[in-house]
């Protein structure tokens, strides 16, 4: 037995030794200014998530480096991955302490708040006005406030449309054929009549048209509220005065939206739709299969669905669906803290060149050459200029053959210093401006909830919500019976503690 012990001890010691190495690999805390020297070229490591990775990426980065070397003395070591790959790899790379200067973060991949909480990103509040002055001035203050965590900024947000706007996209050809006046639809209740007409008229034609889909997103659009935890599903909502809803919760700054009258009303409305057969046989699964939904929509087997709208969407859908597409907003755009987290570029807390990194991010956001290059590639090779503001990317072939062609320019920074593809309407920038001007800034914009004190409750609540909410919100179960059950389960798993904690932090936020 002694032998056993000795072997164990020996193994233990060497394990501890090797483990000592592990502790060190988190990297030294940064913030200091590593010398970038005069005339020296600084190389910045940039991890980027964009879909799909273009074949000619190396060529474009080469062109980019030529420019940035001259302009700010920076070269980019560009590590780009497709979105699904980035989502798997990047969190591990950061956790393991891999060195990087700049990385893409958001609330849908490599979560901004999670990694800020793990001290992975650098506080750039002080550096911004100095090293990224133009960007600092160009992006509205509301955006900057929204990405603050405990008062500090840890990433440069992508400035595009501000906030989100819920509404219904519909087949406008069909609406016309059935004589439906969509402009009369102002709320969910108004829509019942529309669905009735669609069902009746389509049946008369011998077709079986599904009236509306996308209900799993619809509830926050029916009665918009501010998601104080950053997650609209968690039961901690704040009322937005402009929407004049949630009268029954008037005296509470933070409330459980599932306990509101609005939730009951919403669920009953969609329950009615479900029972009348406007939603197809299995709305939950129908919603999750977007490919099938899009196909039904294009073929006229689906009349409408709920979406979060961005300028240009209806035009885009008209082009892809083969029939007219209209949009009825159910609310004005709402800008809240989480809205700014669709995409950010953050600097590593271990970065040796945070100033240079900021200067580079500044170029991405304000320099038209850099913006267009990184988005559309090299002029003459990947696109040809059309007028001053537009590009044509077909280059005499199809888009598929283009060696550098990206879906989402804004992931690199902002679309406003990138030329637009000719498929967008000419007045696209004005559309964006109109949208952003109409956006309601939520009352507590800039408040970021620190979930750490209630992580246990959040974990349990997330499970409860995914158990009950989808069936209630698609009208698959009777709200009179299931909402009380849902509320009991929420309370049994700490909904009250969550509301109290949010309230507490909100009070401190307001005071400080």
């Amino acid at each position: 037995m002694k032998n056993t012990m000795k072997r164990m001890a020996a193994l233990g010691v060497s394990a501890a030794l090797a483990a000592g190495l592990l502790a060190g690999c988190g990297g030294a805390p940064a913030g200091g200014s590593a010398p970038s020297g005069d005339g020296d070229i600084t190389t910045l490591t940039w991890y980027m998530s964009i879909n799909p990775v273009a074949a000619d990426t190396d060529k474009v980065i080469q062109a980019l480096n030529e420019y940035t070397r001259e302009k700010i003395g920076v070269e980019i070591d560009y590590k780009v991955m497709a979105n699904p790959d980035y989502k798997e790899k990047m969190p591990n790379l950061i956790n393991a302490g891999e060195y990087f200067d700049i990385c893409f973060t958001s609330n849908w991949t490599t979560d901004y708040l999670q990694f800020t909480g793990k001290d992975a990103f650098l506080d750039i509040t002080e550096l911004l006005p100095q090293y990224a002055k133009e960007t600092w001035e160009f992006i509205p203050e509301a955006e900057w406030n929204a990405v603050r965590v405990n008062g500090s900024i840890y990433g440069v947000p992508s400035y595009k449309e501000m906030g989100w706007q819920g509404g219904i996209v519909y087949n406008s050809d069909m609406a016309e054929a059935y004589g439906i006046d969509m402009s009369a639809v102002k709320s969910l209740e108004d829509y019942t009549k529309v669905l009735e007409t669609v069902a009746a008229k389509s049946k008369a034609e011998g077709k079986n048209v599904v009236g509306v889909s996308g209900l799993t997103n619809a509830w926050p659009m029916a009665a918009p509220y501010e998601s104080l935890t950053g997650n609209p599903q968690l039961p901690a909502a704040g009322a937005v005065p402009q929407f004049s809803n949630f009268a029954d919760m008037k005296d509470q700054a933070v409330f459980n939206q599932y306990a509101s009258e609005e939730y009951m009303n919403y669920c009953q409305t969609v329950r009615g739709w479900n029972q009348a057969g406007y939603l197809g046989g299995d709305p939950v699964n129908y919603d999750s299969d977007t490919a099938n939904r899009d196909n039904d929509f294009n073929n006229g087997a689906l009349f409408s669905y709920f979406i979060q709208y961005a300028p240009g969407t209806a035009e885009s859908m008209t082009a892809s669906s083969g029939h007219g597409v209209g949009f009825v907003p159910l609310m004005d755009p709402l800008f809240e803290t989480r809205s700014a987290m669709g995409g950010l570029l953050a600097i590593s807390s271990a970065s040796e060149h945070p100033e240079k990194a900021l200067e580079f991010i500044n170029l991405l956001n304000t320099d038209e050459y850099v913006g267009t290059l990184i988005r559309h590639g090299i002029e003459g090779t990947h696109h040809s200029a059309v007028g001053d503001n537009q590009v044509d990317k077909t280059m005499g072939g199809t888009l598929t053959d283009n060696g550098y062609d990206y879906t989402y320019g804004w992931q690199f920074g902002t679309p406003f210093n990138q030329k637009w593809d000719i498929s967008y309407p000419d007045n696209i920038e004005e559309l964006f401006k109109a949208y952003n001007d109409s956006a309601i800034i939520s009352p507590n914009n800039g408040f970021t909830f620190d979930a750490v004190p209630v992580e246990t409750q959040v974990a349990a609540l997330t499970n409860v919500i995914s158990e009950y909410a989808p069936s209630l919100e698609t009208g698959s179960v009777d709200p009179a019976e299931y909402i009380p059950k849902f509320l009991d389960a929420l309370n049994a798993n700490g909904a009250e503690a969550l509301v109290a904690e949010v309230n507490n932090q909100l009070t401190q936020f307001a005071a400080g």
Partner: protein
Amino acid sequence: MKRSAPCTDTVCRKQGFLKTFRKNLPLTIMALPALVVMFLFRYLPMSGLLLAFKRFSVPKGIFGSDWVALQNFEFLFKTSDAWVITRNTILYNALFILLDLVLAVSMAIGLSELLRKRRAKVYQTIFMAPYFLSWVVVSFMAFSLFSVDDGLFNHLLAYFGFAGVNWYSEPGKWPLILTFFQIWKTVGYSTVMYISTLTGISNDYYEAAIIDGATKWQQIRRITLPCLKPMMIVLTILAIGRIFYADFGLFFQLPRNSGPLYPVTQVIDTYVYRALKETGNVGMAAAASLYQSVVGFVLVVGANLAVRRIEPDSALF
């Protein structure tokens, strides 16, 4: 450990150790590559277990992060579903272990008794086929059977004049469905394991049995099963060690994450997945995994003890 002679003083003990070591050196060298791999790829990362008791910070690393005592474990027990989750995980796995054992052994014996060996080979290959399909693909297949509007089953029901069933919201049907798919997917794999053991049984035993006039059943009971027993015991003990781990794909993908089915599909792995999707807390993930490991460890030690009482040669350790 074996010792050549009883020693009391340190010198002698040291000599005894050296002697044993030298005597066993060739076999130790043979084991060395595996030991090195095990050390580098399994034991070095074990430091991650500490994360179960810590709040992870990237710059501070695993060792420098702050201790939070047992806080990371709370979410596993503070949910009102803790009982349902534990019950589901253990009952399903216990059922799977039992069914897999009985079916795989029966199939292995059955296949080896077929009169045409070629056919047996073809069957065996085909039985492995489901093992190659990912749960995601299986879930799409299953959806084409169970879909309310377009599913094969509802079409059949309608054809025979019955009302359609909303499969994804009726929990009562799912224990059976889940069990079927689990067995369908894995039994071929276990069967192969038993067949290869069967192949190793010497024919001398059977020849002797036939001379003694033993029937087929007697041969199976007296020769085949006893020869398969060590493998059955080993595979079962190992499966018991994983009784607290549920197959995520089976319980999450196959029921399409359907809420109304949670009472019968919520298992520890799906709960942890949903719980941590929001917070991404690596400490809580480590805590959940440690909890599963400890339960598995206790059960394996227990099962092994029991086996050692009854059948010392088949015990794992």
